[in-house]
């Protein structure tokens, strides 16, 4: 099958959806630049022009409200935050209005099908306010769908799904994934919202991962396979709604659980999955759950500190070894090298 990058997959989904559905438009800072949000909006801009793909002032709060108001009368706005960290400024519109719209007007004001794309950073000294990952607070409040595609395939399929969904959807795209290549069907398709995927079957231990941490988990699994340790890796893909079944089924099989996410632990996705295990998977658990998330401090800038700040494949692999009471010969050389070249 044909191979596309994650960025190309998002671009293709956008273009295909816009072709079928004239109500879709894309708005936000830089969406009509030649660089077009890592190239994800460039093609849409070329095809549909400024009428449907347009730059806006920096106005995160109003942009979200504008999207809601346009959606309320039949549009399907896609708004883009070049950094999801800027989205805090839009939390009122997102959580107090978009998330509650359908429910609090008793369904009588219809739905507000907006798609909010927002980019998650990591590393290269992006620092404390350009590298956060907001899935946990967004998923905490009923009403928002929160997606984190990892593969190019899912980036396209979930974008298509979001653009057909009847409520507000936030898609968090990890910056380190934009260049990732993978097989992507040409025709339009949908990855169902609310479905996790077993991206690598295994028997000894389940790793539930989100976004870029799935890449790290797969790398850890590859490595441990050399020592005949079999990790099952689940790519969560959808934070809310959560695919409890897939997780619990895996737990039933392996009895052991590591959860890893791109954000912090406290009241985070890792805790949510661990709680699920403690509540509904308890009788299958053979060992304590292990959460692997960001250390309890803001992201530092210095490369020396970033190196120890971000959990990675080796972190997961080591935790798995401890949980299984095993050792490995080769561990330590499996971590990704960040070969990004500045400037930002």
């Amino acid at each position: 099958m044909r191979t596309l990058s994650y960025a190309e997959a998002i671009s293709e989904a956008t273009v295909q959806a816009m072709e079928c559905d004239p109500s879709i438009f894309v708005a936000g800072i830089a969406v009509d630049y030649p660089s077009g949000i890592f190239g994800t909006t460039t093609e849409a801009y070329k095809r549909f022009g400024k009428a449907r793909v347009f730059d806006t002032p920096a106005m995160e709060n109003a942009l979200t409200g504008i999207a809601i108001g346009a959606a309320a009368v039949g549009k399907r706005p896609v708004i883009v935050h070049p950094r999801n960290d800027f989205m805090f400024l839009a939390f009122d519109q997102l959580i107090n209005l978009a998330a509650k719209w359908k429910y609090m007007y008793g369904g009588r004001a219809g739905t507000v099908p907006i798609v909010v794309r927002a980019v998650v950073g990591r590393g290269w000294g992006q620092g404390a306010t350009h590298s956060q990952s907001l899935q946990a607070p967004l998923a905490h409040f009923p009403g928002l769908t929160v997606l984190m595609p990892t593969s190019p395939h899912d980036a396209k399929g979930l974008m298509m799904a979001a653009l057909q969904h009847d409520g507000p959807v936030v898609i968090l795209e990890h910056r380190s994934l934009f260049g990732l290549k993978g097989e992507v069907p040409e025709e339009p398709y949908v990855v169902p919202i609310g479905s996790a995927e077993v991206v690598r079957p295994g028997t000894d231990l389940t790793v539930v991962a989100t976004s870029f941490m799935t890449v790290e988990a797969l790398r850890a699994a590859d490595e441990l396979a050399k020592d005949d340790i079999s990790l099952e890796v689940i790519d969560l893909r959808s934070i809310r709604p959560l695919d409890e079944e897939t997780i619990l089924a895996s737990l039933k099989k392996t009895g052991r659980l590591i959860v890893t996410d791109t954000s912090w632990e406290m009241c985070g996705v890792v805790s949510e999955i661990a709680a699920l295990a403690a509540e509904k998977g308890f009788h299958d658990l053979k060992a304590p759950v292990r959460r692997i998330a960001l250390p309890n401090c803001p992201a530092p800038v210095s490369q020396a500190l970033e190196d120890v700040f971000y959990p990675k494949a080796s972190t997961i692999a080591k935790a798995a070894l401890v949980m299984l009471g095993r050792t490995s010969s080769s561990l330590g050389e499996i971590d990704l090298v960040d070969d990004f070249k500045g400037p930002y």
Partner: protein
Amino acid sequence: MSQSHSGTEIVSRSNSLVLPSAEKSIEMHRSLLRVRMTEETLATRYTEQEMRTPTHFGTGQEAVAVGVCSALDAGDMVYTHHRSHNHFIARGGSVYELAAELYGRIDGCSLGRGGSVHLTDRDKGFMVSSAILAETVATAVGTALAYAMDGEAKVAVCFFGEGTLDEGAFYEAINFASIRKLPVVFACENNLYATESPLSVRQAPGSDLCDRLRAFKVTSERVDGNDVAAVYDAAVRAVQQARSGGGPVFLECMTYRWREHVGPMFDHDAKRSYRDKAEFDAWVARDPVRRSATRLIEQGVATAAEVEVWAAETKAEIEATVERARQAPWPAVDTLFENA
């Protein structure tokens, strides 16, 4: 108070006003009555403790809602804020559904989910009210954007209090509307207070809200918000400009709320001291409903007797409607997750 527009001295075009037709005047007066009587009836029943939802009554501010809504077409779309009943009724929303919403009944406009601050009646061109300051300004701009993108000759309107201009979100929204010349009318009800805070806490001395909007290149006009004809006149022009691609318009309608900020009482009864009685009395003397009635009679459009009959009819009908709403069924508990 050092503000430029404290009491009742209002820059208004009332003198040079072209009055609406007899028919329109009567229609607007009857709408004023509907709005006033609805609010009065709800306020009275509110004290019975059966409407359990924080409520901001709009008594005294009716002319803004009626004047603006009377200038709209059926296809236009209204948004508003927490003090929303006036706009809901003036836009043709059902008194029964409003009352049922306050009673938390299934027949409420929002099925008893929203309460006083979350009303909707899309079919009547009333999208939603919301309880967070400035929230619906951006949504109205978004609706106007959709209209503009589709080349539809529709207008979005947002009602809000002058307190909304304290919030930064407001300026983002109006700036975008101005840049894109969107068909939206911003109808500000400047009632001089936000909860119990006077303008002096919230604006520098000598502030003029219209100037703020003008600095964003939004056409702005201050209007006597207690004169339904003056509001209507300004609104017709505003809507006309917005609809014809001339860009957004800001109307600062000077008015006054008679009751306490939230709840049915009068300040004095509630022992609140932030406004003085003289100020209150001066505004009550400018009662928009009575002014409208007086003008109808003076102009020979209606007789005093007719006006009284309308009032009595309206009152009776609304009281019966509200009582009917009180007897409507509760939402079934197994529908808790409906629309979740």
